[in-house]
């Protein structure tokens, strides 16, 4: 566990500092799109990015080497710094300034900052930090984040204390603090992805459930590859997953406890069932159960296995997703002849179709912010990832390829992860990420494995 402590009790001029950064964001965002609005309210900068895409100039951040105290070696410090740098740069919102350009070194943590040295090299944000070994397997990092332009501290300094083995998470947490304080957005770097690692030829794919850190590190396999597995999903507390496996010969939903490794199934559920999704409180899950020609959505209690039928249309009703407050469910159904998105109350009442555009819509995922629903769209022989408001207005397409599928949201609702599959006999899937603005598309590295069906965890504790 990582403990944290405030170094500084005074809030300082937080409000005015944030406003100074807000002004810069206005410049960045307004420069490339009419729909980009940045508002500062309640001391929080809110980015309302355009989903039309575009390139803006990232915020320049100075990340000088951390001060090393006894027991910490240089390589450890550099590793930590590299993880943190990559987190920030991968957002597309930050750009680190090349270290060769630095005019001064930070050699004493509590010494006054020479702001002119950092403003001269065009830094907007500066991180100062100090590492110290505090036990045989334990270290601490003290850090402060600085607004170079207004020459003042950006929020309180913090100290994280952790087991040495947790160093990557510590790096993610420091990066999360920078990201959060500069953008006002919720953090997301200290999170995990559960996905399906694939290998072998297309007609005999070996599929294994695996987890990795949000940045692709620490890949760990959870299933052996003997049975086909489909679409794993983290519980809200990230301590278990639900997924579909052919272990019994037909697709059925299983739960795996990530601490004990124990796998359990739901004996009360009949026949073939798939498409499990946790409720936001972690007490129930939704899934599809197939009976004869019909596939319907049910809600199942995790404590007693009791199931409640939510849809009864003679159609394929599947891929449900709860709204973050648990009151609504979005799902896909072909009841109107082709796959379309529908919303309903969490008891199954008040079903309303929300997509009417050209093509088919599936795999809806409700944003953790509640404001948008991501989906896969199929039209004109292409697959698209897009977003739409829960009332069915404001549809925006973010990506297009021969096969883009299965969107999942970052914990802060700012980034969408999905998988893109290439065509042909050697076609294979890989995981990609894109900002909800449509900017910064990038491919995840998953080693020698193909990767599909990603699901993002909540922010870890």
């Amino acid at each position, binding site marked *: 566990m990582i403990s944290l402590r405030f170094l500084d009790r005074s809030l300082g001029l937080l409000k005015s500092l944030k406003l100074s950064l807000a002004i810069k964001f206005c410049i960045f965002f307004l420069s490339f799109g009419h729909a980009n609005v940045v508002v500062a309210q309640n001391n929080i900068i809110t980015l309302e990015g355009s989903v039309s895409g575009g390139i803006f100039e990232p915020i320049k951040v100075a990340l000088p080497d951390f001060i090393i105290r006894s027991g910490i070696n240089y390589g450890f410090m550099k590793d930590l710094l590299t993880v943190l740098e990559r987190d920030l740069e991968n957002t597309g919102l930050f750009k680190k300034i090349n270290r060769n350009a630095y005019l001064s070194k930070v050699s004493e943590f509590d010494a006054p900052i020479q702001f002119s040295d950092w403003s001269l090299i065009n830094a907007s944000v500066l991180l100062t930090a100090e590492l110290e070994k505090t036990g045989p397997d334990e270290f601490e990092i003290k850090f402060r984040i600085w607004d170079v332009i207004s020459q003042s501290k950006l929020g309180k300094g913090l100290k994280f204390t952790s087991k040495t083995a947790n160093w990557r998470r510590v790096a993610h947490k420091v990066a999360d603090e920078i990201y959060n304080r500069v953008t006002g957005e919720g953090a997301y770097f200290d999170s995990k992805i559960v996905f399906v690692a694939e290998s072998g030829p*297309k007609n*005999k794919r070996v599929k294994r459930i695996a987890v990795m850190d949000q940045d692709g590190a620490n890949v760990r396999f959870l299933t052996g590859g003997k049975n086909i597995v489909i679409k794993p999903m983290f519980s809200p507390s990230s301590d278990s997953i639900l997924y579909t496996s052919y272990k019994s010969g037909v697709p059925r939903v299983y739960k795996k406890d990530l601490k004990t490794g124990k796998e359990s199934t739901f004996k009360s559920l009949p026949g073939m069932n798939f498409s499990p999704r946790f409720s936001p409180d972690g007490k129930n899950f939704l899934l599809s159960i197939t009976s004869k020609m019909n596939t319907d959505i049910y809600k199942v209690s995790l404590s007693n296995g009791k199931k409640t039928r939510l849809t009864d249309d003679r159609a394929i009703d599947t891929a449900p997703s709860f709204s973050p407050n648990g009151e609504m469910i979005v799902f896909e159904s072909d009841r109107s002849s082709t796959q379309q998105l529908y919303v309903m109350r969490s008891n199954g009442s008040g079903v309303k179709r929300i997509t009417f555009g050209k093509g088919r819509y599936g795999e809806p995922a409700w944003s953790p912010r509640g404001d948008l629903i991501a989906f896969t769209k199929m039209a004109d022989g292409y697959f698209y990832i897009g977003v739409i408001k829960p009332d069915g207005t404001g549809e925006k397409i973010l990506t297009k390829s021969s096969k883009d599928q299965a969107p999942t949201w970052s914990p802060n609702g700012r980034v969408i992860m999905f998988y893109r599959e290439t065509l042909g*006999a050697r076609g294979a899937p890989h995981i990609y990420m894109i900002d909800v603005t449509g900017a910064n598309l990038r491919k995840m590295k998953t080693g020698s494995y193909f990767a599909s069906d990603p699901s993002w965890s909540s922010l870890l504790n």
Partner: protein
Amino acid sequence: MVAKERFFKMHITKLTLLGLLLFAFASCRSSEGSGNYSQSIIGDGSIKITQLEDNKAQIGETVFFGIDESSISSEMMSVLDAQISYLKENKKHSITIEGHTDEQGTREYNLGLGAKRSNSVKTYMISQGVNEDRVEVVTYGKERPEELCSEERCWKKNRRAVTVIAGGFN
């Protein structure tokens, strides 16, 4: 050590009763992902032996479907009629109907669609007098394509229902 999927034909003696050439064989194929014949002599002369999985035995021909369809065309009904005749003659066999889709849809929708296809075949078989207790269904969605290209000529062969004998021929 992954052997290529092999097809071979097996004559079924009782067919003469039916007099239907249409259905002169059941193709029999190795199960997914298993080695077919994996005994080989490695450099130092030792022999590595791997146990083979049971064969899956397909009954009759594959039933194909239109795009996003689970209804059975009249042409495909005659394919099924041959399977049904065989099942009536060979009452000891129980079967599993595997429903598959092409790769064009989303994964979970295709599980639903594959289930519709396998159930569509099951419903037809029961309507033609096959005992319901002998018929199991499974959907594979788009997980196990037969043809690999990303063109209609492959996709139309992947939109299919395959009838296999539960446990294989023994």
